[in-house]
């Protein structure tokens, strides 16, 4: 889990250097090095129109992209992290939380919605990587639990969009246990025969990868997203081998038989609508 949290501290140092929505009018694409007009990328779901490089997008952009126009409401907005361990390294966890809130909003690392995707009601949870690297502590675990329970209550599908470095170290075993908690409720979705779809985005690692992210009935990933249990650096240090080309990227996972498909962000909404209509045996609204 080392790498993951290193990433929380210094996302730019480790990840592809597009970790935030680019500022300014012009943006250089990390995929094809073209200088692009920002509005042009925004029109194409923050995907480079030339080389299909996927820029990171905010939760707000994501939910707007997925749902029918204006058809979504936020839920569970009041939940706030506490500091149950009194955790302190060079900085106090409490201070880190304050900073994260200033930087990435007061929703902790996950936002929940009830929304409509081509008319289909869906309970949706989206990780916010900008908030402490999307790390899962008690609040994230509880929000996922409640999101799943809303699906159970409304008898509708549950959609989880992941982007996380893993469990939140600052909550110790409490955050580890969120893996067990969320997995237990995922079992209830299975028993209720409600579709649970995971969309894995860059990056999805550690404790999030090794729990809810891999429990979807259908699991898809955005192109070239980094997805795995252990971070590449930890693996490299452990096995003292050079990692194979494309290791832990979406296409690699597809080849290894670990996910259902790699889907371009611009097609995710259609993909979801079709899958939901298939699994719930309803006609597909084109």
């Amino acid at each position, binding site marked *: 889990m*080392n790498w993951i949290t290193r990433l929380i501290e210094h996302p730019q140092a480790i990840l592809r250097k597009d970790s935030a929505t680019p500022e300014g009018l012009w943006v250089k694409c990390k995929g094809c090095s073209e200088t692009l007009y920002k509005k042009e990328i925004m029109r194409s779901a923050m995907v480079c129109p030339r080389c299909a490089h996927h820029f990171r997008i905010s939760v707000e952009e994501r939910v707007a992209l997925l749902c029918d126009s204006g058809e979504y409401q936020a839920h569970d907005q009041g939940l706030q992290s506490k500091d149950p361990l009194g955790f302190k390294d060079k900085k106090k966890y409490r201070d880190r939380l304050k900073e994260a809130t200033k930087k990435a909003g007061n929703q902790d690392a996950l936002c929940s919605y009830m929304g409509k995707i081509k008319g289909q009601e869906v309970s949706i949870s989206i990780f916010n990587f900008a908030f402490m690297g999307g790390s899962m502590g008690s609040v994230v675990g509880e929000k996922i639990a409640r999101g799943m329970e809303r699906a159970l209550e409304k008898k509708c599908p549950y959609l989880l969009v992941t982007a996380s470095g893993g469990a939140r170290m600052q909550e110790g075993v409490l955050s580890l246990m969120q893996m067990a*908690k969320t997995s237990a409720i995922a079992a209830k979705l299975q028993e209720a025969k409600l579709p649970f779809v995971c969309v894995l985005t860059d990056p999805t690692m550690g404790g999030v990868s090794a729990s809810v992210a891999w429990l979807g009935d259908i699991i898809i990933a955005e192109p070239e997203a980094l997805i795995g249990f252990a971070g590449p650096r930890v693996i490299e240090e452990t096995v003292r081998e050079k990692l194979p080309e494309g290791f832990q990227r979406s296409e690699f996972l597809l080849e290894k038989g670990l996910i259902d498909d790699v889907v371009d962000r611009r097609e995710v909404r259609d993909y979801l609508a079709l899958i939901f209509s298939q699994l719930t045996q309803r006609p597909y609204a084109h």
Partner: protein
Amino acid sequence: MIPHSYLEFERPIAELTVKIEELSSMGRAADVNIAEEVQKLSQKRDKLLHQIYEKVSPWQICQLSRHPERPYFFDYVEHLFDDFQELHGDRAFADDQAIVGGLARFHGRSVMLVGQQKGRDTKEKLKRNFGMARPEGYRKALRLFKLAERFDIPVLTFIDTAGAWPGIDAEERGQSEAIATNLLELSRLRVPIICTVIGEGGSGGALAIGVGDRLLMQQYTSYSVISPEGCAAILWRDRAFAEQAAQTLKLTAKDLLELKLIDEIIPEPLGGAHRYPKEAAAILDKRLQDNLNHLMILPEDKLLEQRQQNLRQLGIFQS
């Protein structure tokens, strides 16, 4: 039993022990003075042992939890169970030796045992990958959990791992998927499950056999979301701060009981399980028996309801 390797903080005990041994070997000729001296020193050593162990720090507990002479899963199998029959493999890829499982009898009752095994000597350590399992290990565990469920046999798991194996092969075969699936299936397995941390409880790799009706920890074991060294390397950028990390991570049995994350601390003999493995096993035996007896009388639905309620309530936050 006297352990061969002493931890740094045990040095005064080691020194006294050496002195006692020297004197004892000199006093073969029933020298009264020497016998008296040995007795005095032994008392002093016991007192010292008590003093040192009474206030072991979280970091010292981490070291104890990884003590090379600490009883491993197989030692408890030998001391606590009869008729152990190891069952191998995940029926798909391999037999991961880092996780061992099989049927056994516990005071006459059939039980399914699953535990991580670290290995004593270099050869066994390599064979068992230092107790760090690959996906096929977790899938073997799952196969055995399901087998137990089919035959109404309770499950006892024994956690002792630094973590799931962070290797290329493990990623290629779906380490995340294997762990996640175990978490889900254990939450709804229709037989009693008791999980005991007998050494190191290393993150997701421990949790993958750690979801059940009871979570017990022996007194000098640890359970953490990340190793103190790993935590220190990230947050302090220096592994030398592992001691501070161990302190703030709240990874001891006492801390975790206070946080209501475990059900019970299983006491160890004074000086630790590595010093008195038989005595440690006897205490564990009794606690497992009590807990299992309690769970066996619960109707299946009640058992599952309780387990799922406990899982649902995990977490501390402000609403």
